[in-house]
């Protein structure tokens, strides 16, 4: 699509935003031409969300910037009424739909026309209006259907219809803020068909996404944000690939992880006997010092339950874990994982803010929690070792901001994950059980996390890595156990590559259902 001449659909110039001592955005410029699909990318914390919040009037920017739509300046901070008048709308990550209500109610929410005296909503008129919008979108739906009953892409269509209903033909800008996250691969391509039909109708789209592959595939041009500043403004997408984009986002050459030699030693460290949990029935496993063992499979194959049982988070039906001289029964009901911690077993759970960290408490408090009793005396935790441990982990994992007192919830996802890993690494565990340790973290954080896990293995720690991420498994593991229906269907070792892992996971005869790669 060639950008048309004339005024830009959206032009942002010199936009800055300061939060206290931090400058979240610095002189951001962004131009979206009419009928363009423009991508916006950047690491977690680069300022994308701040920019969207300024565009939607949630935040007011620092004085000095400007925002024009079709050549007409908008007042700052943006007023929602004016924004709607200008035809700028946002589709958020969770689509902002109410599952319990019908399609037409969702689309018209907040716009209902009511009778002057009766205050009654004219359903007929409302439904007709929604049918028209959906027809314009080329996606006729039963407007009386409950949104919760719709497929993922139909839900997306409802959200888009809601966003574009006030647009005049040949105008309007829709901002998709990570809206594709909830869609599967199949649904995603149909979603982009919808987006393209919007553009064919003359609207412009600003697509914010973590999926670089998607950005490269569908957008016309892309703008890259780094540390609150625009690094590349509107590069034609055909001139870049994913690697180049990653490099721009990170500001350093992407360090691709190669496999390194195994750290595994001959010395046995831990053994699992007869583990029965979920679909798993009778898993035996030996782990040597410094060895990294991957567990993977389809969702429901039992590898996740196995990892949770090994970490003490889930009660198994049967089984035992021996770590050095410590015997742990995996089938006991336990109020807490104190005996696992004492035996040198550390568990990094998948859901970091539900199971791993207390968001409202500080980085230092979270990091030191498992050891406040063992390293302190009953009356005093002691400040020195806490400060030392926290500083060491902040340095090891490059946690930012490097502020031990910051509440964990104020950190980005990647940094939270680093705090969670640091919380357990600081205790120098013998056996480290990781469940999706790089899930939803940016490229830089992933790099630091992989390095830290390797360093732990080098120091003699045994690692169990439960993950669906074939890249992580290939790069880190000495061997990978692929689960299917509760059994270890394949064991891969030696030179691992991700294709082999994916292939073994799906198997030749498997449908691939439930895979969340």
């Amino acid at each position, binding site marked *: 699509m060639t950008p048309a001449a004339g005024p830009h659909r959206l032009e942002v110039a010199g936009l800055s935003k300061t*939060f*206290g*001592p*931090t*400058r*979240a955005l610095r002189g951001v410029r962004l131009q979206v031409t009419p009928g363009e699909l423009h991508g916006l990318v950047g690491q977690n*914390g*680069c*300022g994308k*969300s701040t920019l969207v*919040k300024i565009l*939607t009037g*949630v935040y007011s920017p620092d004085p000095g910037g400007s925002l024009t739509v079709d050549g007409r300046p908008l007042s700052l901070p943006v007023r*929602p*009424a004016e924004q709607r008048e200008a035809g700028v709308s*946002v589709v*958020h*990550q*969770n689509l*902002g739909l109410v599952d319990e209500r019908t399609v037409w109610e969702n689309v018209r*929410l*907040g*716009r209902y026309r009511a009778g002057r005296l009766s205050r009654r909503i004219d359903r007929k008129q409302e439904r007709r209006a929604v049918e028209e919008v959906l027809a314009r979108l080329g996606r006729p739906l039963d407007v009386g259907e409950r949104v919760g009953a719709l497929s993922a892409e139909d839900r997306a269509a409802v959200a888009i219809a809601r966003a574009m209903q006030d647009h005049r033909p040949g105008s309007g800008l829709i901002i998709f*803020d*990570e809206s594709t996250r909830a869609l599967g691969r199949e649904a995603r391509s149909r979603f982009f068909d919808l987006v393209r039909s919007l553009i064919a109708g003359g609207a412009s789209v600003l697509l914010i996404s973590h999926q670089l592959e998607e950005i490269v595939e569908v957008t016309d041009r892309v703008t890259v944000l780094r*540390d*609150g500043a625009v690094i590349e403004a509107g590069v034609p997408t055909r001139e870049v690939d994913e690697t180049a984009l990653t490099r721009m986002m990170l*500001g350093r050459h992407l360090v691709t992880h190669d496999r390194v030699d195994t750290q595994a030693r001959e010395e046995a460290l831990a053994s699992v006997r007869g583990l029965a949990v979920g679909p798993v029935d009778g898993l035996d496993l030996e782990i040597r010092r410094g060895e990294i063992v991957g567990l993977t499979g389809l969702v429901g194959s039992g590898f996740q339950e196995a990892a949770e049982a090994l*970490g003490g*988070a889930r009660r198994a039906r049967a089984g035992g874990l021996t770590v050095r001289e410590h015997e742990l029964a995996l089938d006991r009901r336990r*109020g*807490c*994982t104190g005996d696992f911690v004492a035996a040198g077993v550390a568990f990094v*759970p998948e859901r970091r803010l*539900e*199971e*791993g*960290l*207390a*968001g*409202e*408490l500080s980085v230092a*408090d979270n990091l030191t*929690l498992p050891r*406040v*009793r063992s390293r302190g005396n*009953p009356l005093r*935790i002691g400040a020195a070792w806490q400060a030392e441990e926290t500083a060491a982990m*902040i*340095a090891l994992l490059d*946690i*930012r*901001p*490097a*502020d031990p007192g910051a*509440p964990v*919830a*104020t950190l*980005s996802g990647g*940094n939270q994950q680093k705090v969670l890993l640091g919380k357990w690494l600081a205790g120098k565990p013998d056996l480290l059980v990781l469940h999706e340790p790089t899930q939803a973290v940016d490229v830089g954080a992933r790099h630091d996390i992989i390095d830290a896990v390797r360093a732990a293995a080098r120091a003699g720690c045994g690692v169990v890595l439960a993950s669906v991420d074939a890249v992580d498994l290939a790069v880190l593991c000495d061997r990978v156990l692929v689960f299917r229906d509760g059994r270890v269907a394949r064991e891969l070792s030696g030179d691992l590559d991700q294709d082999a892992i994916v292939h073994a996971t799906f198997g030749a005869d498997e449908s691939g259902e439930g895979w969340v790669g």
Partner: protein
Amino acid sequence: MDAARQHDQDIEHDVSQGVSQGVDQGVDQGVDQGASHDADRGVPRRPVPGLASRVRTVSARYAVIAVWAAMIAVYAAAEPGLFLRTPTFQTIFSSQQPLVFLTMALLCTICVGEFVDLSVPAVFSFSATLLPVLVVDHGWAVWPAAAVAVLAGVAIGAVNGLLVVVAEVNTIVVTLGMSTLLGGISLWMSHLNSVSGLSAGFGRIALYEVGGLPVSFYYGLVLVAGFAYLLAFSPLGRHMRFVGASREVSRLSGVRVDRIRFGSFVAAGLLCGVGAVIAVAALGGYNPTTADSYLLPTFAAVFLGTAIIEPGTFNPVGTLIGIYFLETGILGLQLLGLQAWVSPVFYGGVLVVAVTLSTLLRRRRR
């Protein structure tokens, strides 16, 4: 139509607020440090907060204390002859011992995330009735009776704890029921009357004067200081904070969550029992029909405390300041000639304002 538009704006606002949680809210704040770090990667450096944010933090911390000072100034100006005298302040600081123990008892469970123990005033009242009933009506010696009163508090706390922690019944339901039940038993024990006639010698454990104030005032100070120390510096306190923040995180970190939750109910019962014995000693007896009057002040002070010292967090020192803040306000209004209706209005009003404040402060911290 206008209303509809406004409604829609609100919704859009809400939606975008909700979305920010998972993405990079607050990360924004880490950006600048991140940028300046590229040069010295790996060397942690504490960011220096700007003056503006420091002023904001300080003002959030001490806003209530400033209001307290302003309130004293207003009363002093309005009633200089009445308010600004030593007896006024003696009254404020000497009369609040029961409330200090009650609020600390409530803090025990609220700190570990139990929302909320409504039975605290009733347990207090039960122990406070039991002691004079045993001594005056049944002829017990005062010390064994005091011990039984304290043990009764502990036992009731343990029952609450069993029901909430082991049987997993909702805290409000259990404690509301317990509260009503105990209130009834107290009235039955006392035959709906006040029971008095304890010896003046026993009264000395509460009324013995030190520096112009009864010793019970200092008991409160010691209790609050000890509690604050426990929460800030001891392993138990750290565990309590984490259990309050997230049970699952605590459990997976080796914290004995259920033991701490149960223990906090027992501790709450203990504090109610001890507080009751001291209060009864000061009064020489007890009237169980006054039990209800403690409920609102207890909650008002605890919630007001979340706006002081550690904004957004339940904390003992803030609560203590909250107690004296409330008492100053009411005493001043009464000295201005307002009647008894003043105190429910004031306590109720402060409770609503305080809960709102603490909710807003918590939201800002997240």
